């Protein structure tokens, strides 16, 4: 291996050098939060907010794959989340099948639908995809309201905490399940984006002509990115319904899609931790912190104002989002090699 670039990496403590170990540590960290709650150091309701953040973070990671890596935009996140939640609820409650069957079906079916929609709409780019996905999401939302027999219509659908391997979960164990799933998703996403397929997405966003010249089939990779984003959304919907124990149409509206988009932009494009932090900022900060502030806390629609202002600030002053403010990573890669004049002695020809 080349030694010129490694001293900086070696300077880190050994534990931090392995990205996967860092994800595990991150997971362990959020897994300990219920302890604070049971010790009385944290309000029990706070745990609900954090759990929701973990749920939405999965969908946000999917959108980051699409927007950050592939450079495509979707406003259909909420629709696919809803679809995942209803399918999972229907399979567990009405069909009486296992949690695992629900999980697989509720991720696979929306992904296949997403694949079909992608096949039709991904030949066009930019704003058209956003419009197409927005339409799909609205159609799904109307279907949730109308398909009473499956979705429970406006009354919504309720389920209980999941039963996994004959083990009935309670709130804490479901919370732990969210942590495990999010950590796994973060790890898989990390490997994916740093591998060949992830680089192909990078190439597609950075330069379509270069990507094509290097053998990247644009339609194929747009489809991959779009299907993954759909799968993540559906998974997020499944987690939602098992943690919140309820799914009703008004949750799956365009606001949710825009919130997920805000989380990605605020957290930072192409940053895995950034996405999770962005999700926390968008969902938890207004409810957990801002609401308790004097005067400001009383304003109606405070979360909207907060997130709106935050997006403007981020776009104007920190296009890399919160992750761009993290100093270590940037320094390492941007660090310039001392200019040594290229060896002119190798004039062989």
């Amino acid at each position, binding site marked *: 291996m080349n030694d010129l670039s490694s001293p900086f990496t070696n300077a880190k403590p050994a534990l931090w050098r392995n990205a996967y170990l860092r994800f595990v540590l991150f997971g362990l960290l959020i897994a300990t939060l219920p302890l604070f709650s049971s010790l009385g150091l944290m309000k029990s309701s706070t745990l609900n907010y954090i759990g929701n953040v973990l749920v939405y973070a999965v969908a946000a990671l999917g959108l980051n794959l699409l927007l950050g890596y592939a450079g495509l935009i979707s406003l259909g996140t909420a629709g696919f989340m809803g679809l995942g939640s209803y399918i999972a609820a229907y399979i567990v409650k009405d069909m009486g099948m296992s949690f695992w069957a629900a999980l697989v079906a509720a991720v696979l079916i929306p992904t296949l639908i997403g694949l079909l929609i992608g096949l039709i709409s991904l030949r066009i780019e930019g704003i058209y995809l956003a419009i197409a996905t927005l339409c799909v999401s609205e159609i799904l939302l109307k279907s949730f309201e109308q398909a009473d027999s499956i979705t429970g219509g406006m009354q919504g659908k309720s389920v209980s905490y999941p039963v996994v391997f004959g083990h009935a979960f309670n709130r804490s164990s479901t919370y732990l399940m969210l942590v495990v799933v999010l950590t796994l998703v973060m790890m898989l996403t990390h*490997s994916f984006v740093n591998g060949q397929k992830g680089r192909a997405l990078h190439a597609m966003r950075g330069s379509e002509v*270069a990507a094509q010249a290097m053998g990247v089939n644009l339609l194929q990779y747009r489809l991959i990115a779009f299907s993954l984003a759909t799968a993540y959304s559906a998974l997020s919907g499944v987690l939602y319904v098992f943690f919140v124990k309820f799914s009703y149409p008004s949750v799956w509206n365009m606001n949710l899609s825009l919130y997920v988009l805000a989380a990605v932009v605020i957290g930072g494009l192409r940053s895995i931790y950034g996405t999770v932090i962005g999700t926390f900022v968008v969902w938890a900060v207004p409810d957990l912190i801002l609401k308790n502030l004097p005067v400001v806390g009383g304003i109606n629609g405070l979360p909207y104002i907060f997130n709106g202002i935050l997006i403007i600030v981020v776009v104007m002053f920190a296009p890399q989002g919160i992750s761009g403010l993290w100093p270590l990573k940037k320094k390492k890669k941007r660090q310039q090699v001392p200019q040594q004049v290229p060896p002119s002695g190798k004039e062989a020809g």
Partner: protein
Amino acid sequence: MVEPLMDLTLAPQTTTRTLAEDDALRVERLSISFGGLRAVDDLSFAVKKKEIFGLIGPNGAGKTTVFNCITQFYRPDEGNVFFRTGKGDGVVNLVGRPVHSIIGLGLVRTFQNVEVIQELSLLENVLIGAHIDFKATIFEQAFKLPRARREERLFQKKAEEALAFLGIIDRRDLLAGGQPYGVLKKVELARTLMANPRLIILDEPAAGLNDSETHELASTIRQIRDAYDCTILLVEHDMRLVMGVCDRICAISFGKFLACDVPEGIKRNKLVQEAYLGEEEA
């Protein structure tokens, strides 16, 4: 004894479906129009194996368009592009093939304005050149199964070799964004080397380089040809580079063929002189 000689001299004119024994690429009666503009007009030329072949012409002569027609970024209206592929001695007509399938045949190109990915390191940029050689599925890559790890290691090593070959290995982990233009040009070159190329097409490799960098480029191009045993076709404005490095040159003007000759012959050619300097007043 006269007959075979006749045949040989006539060979390039006839429309055979294959390539001559020592040809790597043959462009045959290529034409493409954009609206009313005939950008390339009935152009034919052949590039020999292991040759460094230059395509020159005044501004707007259609050089880059020819490249785009060869690599299928544009569909030519008429004509054929015969190419000897990397696999065996197969000859294919490139016209009509999907643009992303071209690299798999052993033809890889660079771009006039360097097309590298700013947010990736130099090493990662070069690895994109091996895109089609990865066989591991999306799941193998996400779960880092043995085959995915093996491939990543293998091609990473290859990319490091390419970077070392071009003398920029010490920058392998730096982001492409913010690197000097000369380095990015080399990254593009290194990326082409990942694809086991039979033919490399360079679109103005010296554009934006200073004198010493251009000088270095000339020897780099020769080294690539020799070390990677491939043919090189280049479009270039820098006449010193073209005349210095090319074995043969094809000159075009307004999409039409002017001459194809060794550099000395091109320099003396009346038609080429007129195209560059304007016709003599009658």
